């Protein structure tokens, strides 16, 4: 069945370095992808999204890349800061049911000072 998964449960980076969090999905019909950040004790917070007609989208310090050929999604965080420490989730929604987000398991990003 469809799924969204992340390659690594935990990613540890040095403050100031760039972080790359990866995600794979199985359903080629997916057309909307989104990244959330969840800090301890809080709800998921929207970071950035991308639709399947795009390969790349940039925000403030973050970039999402979508490779539909291999069904791969990544989130790049530039100049990682201690405040970026959190669990990061990728998710997608199907065009036939766009209100239903399918979440991956989450990657914990640890930023070392």
């Amino acid at each position, binding site marked *: 069945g469809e799924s969204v998964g992340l390659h690594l449960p935990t990613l540890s980076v040095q403050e100031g370095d760039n972080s790359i969090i990866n995600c794979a999905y199985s359903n080629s019909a997916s057309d909307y992808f989104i990244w959330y950040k969840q800090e301890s004790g809080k709800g998921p917070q929207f970071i950035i999204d991308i639709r399947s007609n795009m390969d790349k989208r940039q925000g403030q310090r973050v970039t999402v890349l979508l490779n539909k050929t291999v069904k791969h999604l990544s989130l790049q965080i530039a100049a990682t800061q201690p405040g970026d420490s959190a669990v990061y989730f990728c998710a997608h929604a199907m065009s036939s049911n*766009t209100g239903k987000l399918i979440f991956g398991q989450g990657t914990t990003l640890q930023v070392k000072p």
Partner: protein
Amino acid sequence: DTAVSQTPKYLVTQMGNDKSIKCEQNLGHDTMYWYKQDSKKFLKIMFSYNNKELIINETVPNRFSPKSPDKAHLNLHINSLELGDSAVYFCASSSVSGNTIYFGEGSWLTVV
């Protein structure tokens, strides 16, 4: 100022009890959701309402009943609570079904 607010934040209750979690959004959105996050942090949708109408109902036990008195509110009532219901329940909303979904801070439910 909280966009999506839910109460209570923490709830500890005994098996067999009935409890409710309330949710309100002040974003003017017309679609609201309930998601469940388990102990492994896996998030899964339970319900979705659009303008007070149920549009998504995942495979959730009948003991869970959402109620939307108006489009700014979506409450979750749980009957006969079981140990396995222990989780974090997130309310969320979006302006149009499929657009960016904004989450509340979560309600930590512990059934003992």
